[in-house]
């Protein structure tokens, strides 16, 4: 299905763009720090 192929290409491009913008690193930092909201403190 063409739509499916286009979606996958767009998704891959978004991943590459995100990595280039440093978003993978931001994700790692955010996930590594203790999330006080998640545990119900803040």
């Amino acid at each position, binding site marked *: 299905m063409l739509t499916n192929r286009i979606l996958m290409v767009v998704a891959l491009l978004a991943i590459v763009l995100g990595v280039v913008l440093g978003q*993978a690193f931001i994700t790692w930092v*955010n996930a590594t720090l203790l999330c006080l909201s998640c545990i119900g403190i803040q």
Partner: protein
Amino acid sequence: MSRLVSLLLNTKRRWVQAVSFLMMNSFVLQALKAIPCLGMNCYACPGAIFACPIGTLQHFAAIHQIPFYTLGVLCLIGALAGRLACGWLCPFGWLQELVYGLGRRFRWPRWHVSERAGWLRYAFLIVLVGLVPFLTLEPWFCKLCPVGTVEAGIPLLLIYSDLRAQAGWLFVVKVAILSGFVIWMMSSKRPFCRFVCPLGAIWSPFNRLSTLRLAVDEATCTRCDECRRVCPVDICVYENPDSTRCIRCMECIRVCPTGSIRLVGE
């Protein structure tokens, strides 16, 4: 494709779910926290190795950036397999199925909620995961999320007394929400997945567009409703094989007496 179908049908899904939960919380390779988790698994859990995608999306909303990376990963998975990860990998989905099984064993009364309320998960996604963090700079879905309560809040507060001293009304609210969901899980199949989960809301539209899809041979289908009986999200598969609620668990394929349901792909 036939090999994949065969592998999925011959694998005990409950074992895959259990192994997935253990792997996602195995406390190894913290570098993997750059990768969005393929399921609802709180990254505040002491053992979590991946990043909760919903927490990540809220964070990017709070810092006013478009989350290309996280959305790209989620869209890629959705385009390949729709909501397959919901049915095979998500720890909270697994928990809901276990609790529902307990409810059946103890003859807990069943509670049917209209599927029309399924739009709520899109509302939670847009409002609590997108709009509210954008405006308040706080991850409000995380503050209320029952997954975080059961995987991170309760374990961490049990282990660390100094954290326990800081818990206040928010923790009480989180525990109340979790308790409500546990009671609901005993009465209904996967209520969080069907009415709340923002991750499921992201993947739901992909069910109709993904490489992997379900198809029903209407010529051989006898409408015996066995598919609906085993479906973890209560779908009448022969009416809507690519339902946005479908979590691609393949239980309907296993149980269909005439073999009318099949997995198709391109």
